[in-house]
């Protein structure tokens, strides 16, 4: 999270300070929504190869990824499914889960295949 704060220049303290996260009612620090979104796109770019083929990407932030201060951290599991191909463009639907919880909603991307 600290690394993403630096890379993105989003220095909201709730992403690296448990004290600030608790002050607004979170159990501990939470991942940046944009980290959760950005990391999820790897499922798509690993499949399509060239990230320049990504035409669009949408997500809804349904719940934060709570990150405990442990060696193990927390696991976010991403999956993507091709829902259709038309005119050389594949539509994909993505999911992101933290345990039982969906952390992204209605996530979808379009990629150029030609």
């Amino acid at each position: 999270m600290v690394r993403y704060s630096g890379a993105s220049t989003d220095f909201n303290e709730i992403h690296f300070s448990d004290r600030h996260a608790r002050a607004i009612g979170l159990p501990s620090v939470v991942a940046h929504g944009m980290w959760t979104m950005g990391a999820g796109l790897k499922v798509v770019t690993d499949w399509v190869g060239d990230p320049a083929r990504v035409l669009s990407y949408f997500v809804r932030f349904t719940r934060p990824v709570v990150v405990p201060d442990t060696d193990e951290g927390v696991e976010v599991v991403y999956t993507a499914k091709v829902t259709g191909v038309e005119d050389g463009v594949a539509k994909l639907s993505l999911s992101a889960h933290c345990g039982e919880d969906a952390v992204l909603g209605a996530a979808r991307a379009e990629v150029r295949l030609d």
Partner: protein
Amino acid sequence: MPISAEHVGRRYPAAPPYVVSRAKIAEFARAVRDDNPAYFGDDPIAPPTFAAVIAAQAWGALFDDEELGLALNRTMHTDQNFTFHRPLRPGDAVVAELSIEKVRGRGNLEMITVLVDLTVDGEPACEARSTLMHTRPEEADDE
């Protein structure tokens, strides 16, 4: 007067261009744990969601607009949509222009959709559309 549908269509002057660098691309790719070779080497491109780094800087105009009465620490990012026209590359001087696209009020909540147009040399590179949920403090409810 707080933000309302009247502010739809308001556009803000672009901040000075953001110049993309190879080092920042590599740093961002590592932060999202993506080792795709396209982000490294001699002729890298930026990970698609790197556009958010530049777009989010343009949000500053929104929070600096005192007429709207918005506070960053009462704002949640509820959804994000990108349309990509071409990848960002080192040396690109990216101009980000923010406009207010939609405003809906529900009690003391305001749902605000903002569009950030990212262009390089006047050509579109990416549109980053975000919905922000803002909670207005009770005392400001003076309609």
